[in-house]
């Protein structure tokens, strides 16, 4: 029974452990890059780079906690923002302010999310496989049915302005300029909201409960079907919003723009301490994990490694993370 108490300490350690790793990596890179990492503009660049991924990670955190997986969010978001942008373009909207674009994108995302929610809540299916199917479905709709095209130079001005808006500017010692995008505030706001929902609302606790033991959740009186439905619906809604945010930040709406993000975001969520079986996970851990991955990707240039090695190093970090948590889990069960 003492082993069980050690277990408690261990689990908490996942979040702290990865935070430690982040700190260590930061120091290492700082020294290897000759002090470039902690320069103000570098930090702002990192903040900018992790905004979108971080937001997707937060939404996926909620799904993973409930014991599921959502592999469809990249194409869901792409469909939402592409369709929304196209509509704005053809209707001549969003020329001054971007809010209509966001509204549209969110609304479309909500509907698409409901598709996920409907299938997952009604049928006892593996969520990974279902969202794999809907991922392809959404891609087929955006690229096939609707044949949405890339929107770059014709991007509605309202969105463009939004993307160019910045909170503040910083300059590096060498005179390089970095701006902190307004989107970062959205990231922080989303993080706070998700944290609050997970910790202080029954909906959030329901996610943990369902992920921990779905049968007990039913018996305890949770409406599991309804919870799951709304979870995926909301994830869709927010994914649409995040997608539009990205359109603003990169100033283009490419229908395939987010392809493959599911394979990078989900490992990040696991790296942050969430369990693939559900029931565990925290906002803190997720943010630390995303930061770690972003820092490592962005810093390669700083320490003189070609950016071509980015994927490889990302892969190594994630591999190391999942290995350690697997070894820890093994030790616990013995």
């Amino acid at each position: 029974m003492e082993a069980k108490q050690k277990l408690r300490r261990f689990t908490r350690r996942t979040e702290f452990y990865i935070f430690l790793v982040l700190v260590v990596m930061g120091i290492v890179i700082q020294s290897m890059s000759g002090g470039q990492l902690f320069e103000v503009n570098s930090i702002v660049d990192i903040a900018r780079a992790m905004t979108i991924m971080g937001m997707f990670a937060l939404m996926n955190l909620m799904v993973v906690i409930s014991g599921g997986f959502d592999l469809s969010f990249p194409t869901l978001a792409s469909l939402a923002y592409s369709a929304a942008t196209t509509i704005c373009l053809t209707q001549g909207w969003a020329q001054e302010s971007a809010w209509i674009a966001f509204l549209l994108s969110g609304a479309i995302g909500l509907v698409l999310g409901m598709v996920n929610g409907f299938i997952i809540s009604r049928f006892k299916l593996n969520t990974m496989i279902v969202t794999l199917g809907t991922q392809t479905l959404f891609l087929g709709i955006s690229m096939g049915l609707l044949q949405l095209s890339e929107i770059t130079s014709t991007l509605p001005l309202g969105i463009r302005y939004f993307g160019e808006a910045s909170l503040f500017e910083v300059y590096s010692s060498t005179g390089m300029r970095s701006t902190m995008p307004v989107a970062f505030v959205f990231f922080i706001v989303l993080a706070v909201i998700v944290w609050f929902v997970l910790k202080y609302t029954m909906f959030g606790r329901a996610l943990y409960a369902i992920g921990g033991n779905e049968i007990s959740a039913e018996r305890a009186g949770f409406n599991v079907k309804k919870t799951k439905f709304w979870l995926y619906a909301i994830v869709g809604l927010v994914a649409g919003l995040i997608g539009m945010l990205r359109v603003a930040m990169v100033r283009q709406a490419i229908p395939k723009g987010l392809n493959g993000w599911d394979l990078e975001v989900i490992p990040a969520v696991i790296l942050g301490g969430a369990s693939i079986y559900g029931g565990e996970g925290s906002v803190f851990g997720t943010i630390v994990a995303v930061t770690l991955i972003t820092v490592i990707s962005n810093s390669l240039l700083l320490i003189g490694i070609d950016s071509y090695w980015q994927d490889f190093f990302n892969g190594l970090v994630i591999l190391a993370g999942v290995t350690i948590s697997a070894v820890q889990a093994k030790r616990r069960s013995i």
Partner: protein
Amino acid sequence: MSEYLLEMKNISKSFSGVQALDHVNFAVRPGKVMCLAGENGCGKSTLVKIISGVYTRDEGEVIFEGKKITKITPAEATRLGIQVIYQDLSIFPNLTVRENLAINSEITANRRFVNQKRMDATAKEALSKIGHKIDLEAKMGDLSVADKQLIAICRALLFNAKLIIMDEPTTALTKKEVEALFKTVRKLRDKGIAIMFISHKTEEIFEIADDIAIMRNGKNVYLGTTADITPKEFTYYMTGRELTDKHFVPKNISKDPILEVKNLTLESNYKDISFDLRKGEILGITGLLGSGRTELALSLFGLLKPDKGDILLNGKKVKITSPIMAQKLHIGYVPEDRLTEGLCLHQPIADNITLSSLKRLSNKLGLIKQKDILEDANIWVDKFSIATDDACKHASTLSGGNQQKIVLSKWLSNDLDILILNGPTVGVDVGAKQDIHDLVHELANQGLAVIIISDDLAEVVANCNRVIVMKDGMIVGQMESDEITNQAILDIIR
């Protein structure tokens, strides 16, 4: 009107043509402990599910507190004051004790936001019902089974329970924990709450129950107080057979031991285990939960490496490092939990039976024909009268007893010297139980060395010519032939 809290008259229920309950009469007195006993498949859990509203009865009456209840749903049952604590305890291992206690109330009250103070109050109130002290912040999954159970009981009490039903609550508890549980049960009884236990453990039943109901084959064969029945009669009602003090008497024991275990030790599991085993013997290893008997078995089979000590086979020292090696050494193991450890349920019966003999059935290149597999499997289906007409059907289509026979066949199709059986008749109906026991006798008489690990004392007494009793990881007693009686073992364990 009646002296009963809950009365059930003439309850019948069938599933796709199979009669699970056949005109069952049942009653629970308020403020008393009632034990519902019966072998596997007798209909106990079906009855409970009807009481708790999960199933609807086909016919019969249910009267609660003197009022006729026409339709019971789970919500209705809770409202009436009926609480069921299932074997899995319906807890959330990843949430805190506080949340586990308070969550049902929060949901019932339609809360949207989490209020720590309010949940604290609810949790403390729940714990106070029994006077149990525990850290509210602790993670549920980290607690012992006994603690989890107490918390499940506390939670049930929050709903003004008048009747608490517990499904095999002592399965995973140590002796001490069982005593603590019984103390709690008595406390509740004194408060006027009726407790209903499902169990099959004779000693425990006679210790705690005021009333007993025994079911067999979907019928109620006894309903009365504990005082009015003796353990012997109890066993008779349970199994329909007389319990004889008949032993297994070995016909042919080899001169030299085939297995010698010397001072085997695995820290925190077992210590200084030494014993011999000869061909033709059936050695019983028994003890309560936590005695280390399963761990010992796993070590003999290569799944748990011992820290110290020696294992000798035919006089030669061996290190059993894996089940593959154990098999090479002609040791077989029928595991405790056939569903998770013994069978691939959604694979054909034939494949399951031949799983450990693939090498024998294939040629040098590793090629194998389904025909050969079927043929080999059917030998065993016939030999053990496994109730199936087609060995290509999935193993999930069989009953517990027949499934156990498959696991046995799997090992017996190898050339074995030693066979270790862990809980060979758990969850097996009476008929199959007898079959399996007879089988094991026959095998021993043909020269196999058998170890039966079991906490079913009746099984151990009837089937072993030697018994080792373990407690807290050590051997505390050894007996031979006539020395082996129920009482003798109990004396040592206590």
